[in-house]
């Protein structure tokens, strides 16, 4: 299997790197979903996308600003805690939580309501939003909610705003 690695913040680079093989021999320009089950135990051929800004705190700060200016918070809520769209900080993912999966969700959209941002955001801006989301603390376990003896449920550690 031929690896297809994108090291620069350029979607063109992804297309270039992945289109060198033929339809029969090269992996498609897609990404792996680590949480998918592979039929027959064999993973489908796929590229692996690398975030050029991974773990860069300056890029995460930029990403937070972009998250707001692109109106992401209008659906996913302030702090990405979830609103009409799902929470992005609970450590749970519908479409895979790898950097590449997040990139694809933003670039192409997802059919349950996520619009495709690939036409209005540069690849670099998308990667910075990915970096911001990945920089958010994620609970190691989602706590079981309990309401002992009629008392109010424990307040979550995280503040929430609509």
């Amino acid at each position, binding site marked *: 299997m031929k690896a297809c690695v994108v090291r620069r913040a350029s979607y063109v680079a992804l297309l270039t790197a992945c289109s060198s093989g033929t339809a029969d021999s090269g992996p498609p320009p897609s990404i792996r979903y680590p949480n998918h089950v592979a039929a027959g135990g064999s993973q489908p051929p796929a590229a692996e996308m690398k975030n050029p800004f991974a773990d860069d705190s300056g890029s995460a700060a930029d990403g937070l600003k972009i998250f*707001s*200016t*692109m*109106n992401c918070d*209008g*659906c996913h809520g*302030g702090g990405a*805690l*979830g*609103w*009409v*769209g*799902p*929470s992005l900080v*609970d450590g*749970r*993912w*519908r479409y895979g939580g790898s950097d590449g999966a997040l990139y694809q969700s933003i670039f192409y*959209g997802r*059919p*349950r*309501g*996520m*619009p495709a941002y690939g036409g*209005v955001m540069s690849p670099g801006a998308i990667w910075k939003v990915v970096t911001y989301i990945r920089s958010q603390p994620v609970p190691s376990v*989602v706590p079981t*909610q309990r*309401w002992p003896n009629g008392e*109010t*449920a424990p*307040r*979550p550690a*995280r*503040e*929430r*705003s*609509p």
Partner: protein
Amino acid sequence: MNTALLLALSLIQGTPQRDDGQWTMPGRDYAATRFSSLAQIDRTNAARLKAVWSFSTGVLGGHEGQPLVVGSTMYVVTPFPNVLYAFDLTREGYPLKWKYRPDVNPTSQGIACCDAINRGAVYADGKIVYNLLDGHTVAIDAATGKELWKTQIADMGQGETTPMAPFIARDRVLVGPSGGEFGIYGWVKALDLASGKILWTAHNMGPDSLMIARRGTFTGGANLGVSTWSGDSWRRGGAPVWGWISYDPQLDLIYLGTGNPGPYNTEQRPGENKWTNSVLARRPSDGALVWAYQFTPHDSWDFDANAEMILADLVVGGRMRKVLVTFNKNGFAYTLDRATGELLVAEPFAHVTWAKGIDKRTGLPILDTTKVTGASRGNVTGICPSLEGGKSPASPSAFSPRTGLFYTATNNLCMNFEAAPVTRIPATPFIGATTPYVAGPGGYMGAFIAWDAARGRKVWEVKEQFPVWSGTVVTAGDLAFYGTLDGWFKAVDIRSGKVVWKFKVGSGVVGAPITFRGPDGKQYVAVYAGIGGDWFLLSGDVRSDDPADVRPPADFAPELGRHTSQGGIVWIFGL
């Protein structure tokens, strides 16, 4: 007050249809009274009500709106994916006659601001007509379930979705879009009932030509839909049409409320922003605007005016008047002359801090300027009501001509409001504010109230722990029915305000109950359970179907998730 006279006038002017035990349109009649003259179930026997039937819709989204009963068939529209069920009420267990499964674009779920809800269908001329979330209106043969026509009315690419229940006046199907949080350019359209062809489109702002505001017909002023905005901000100024429409056949006027201006940040749209947050009276034949009244000019708080406009005939100030009564999100209940738009009464029905009152002479609110919001004004605190409204427009109220009173669910919430500049990117939210809620004064978050619209005063109230988001039905048995977010369905004696019966329906109620006479001659009451709508967003933790979406409880209502999760159920109750 002469109750018999009121009833007679109501039947002549507001309720042209004989009460045949059916429920064929969202508000039951053109006047949107949600009043039924059925009286088998009354104050003396309501305690014996029991569940006679229930049905899971198979859908989890917020079940707003109401079933229809036409002849011996009950029709139920679900939230996205907008399945239409037809139940045969003549057979034991009410089995399905047919089930219509439209092909709805799932992306609509992300363009809808506040859960993928639907507010119901309307019946006329053998057709069930309703909107799909993705911007289409469909007409279905009521007998066979066959699709007769399907018309695209809205553009999701501009942030428009269509959860509204259509309204039919004469042979016109009237529809409008949601999208006040997406910077749409709001409108109402009339479709031909027979063919689905779009006959006219009237915008809610912009030049008179696009508003169908003609000199001689509309006397309010020229091009107010442009001059009350800065630059071309009206082009993305919101004014969605997502509530209910009523119709006076004698005056030949339809009444529709418009929603909030966009964005929430006021500083991006200086001016009064006409005709957002307004009631517009139009001719159904050609859409011509006849009069308009703006409840909340230059809205600073998301006070949509999409609530039902109930038509009644009341003695106001010693004179019998043809009025329109509406409970606005801004916390005031308004009584207007429905022929002219003249303001007669405007008094608070909920705790209000943003205004000191409404000036009857000018019709303008007397603002508390410390509550005005905007990006340069920072975090403005202590605004009541919250943007959920003193009453949600999604929760239609009811009018009993037997008492002359109105009955409605209310919210007792306040908010802080921190605005920020925002850029419009079509098909993404265009909001620009953070607005956390707190409970209003008194230690309760909602109530069910009786309201005297002639005098502008509350007659009684039933306090509720949580905001009340259900519609209301009122009957000649002198009962009102409503549901609660924590999943109770209740009957109230409208003479005393006493709860005489309640039943836990399995999920919070955001729908609107109806009553009907079954083929067996008995009276029944039906309602949806199924928390959602804004409460899908606000409750935090009522979702259980998606392992990838886990949320903390709402900080202002952490107990709500203890009493309800999502789930759509149709209930029928009887004696």
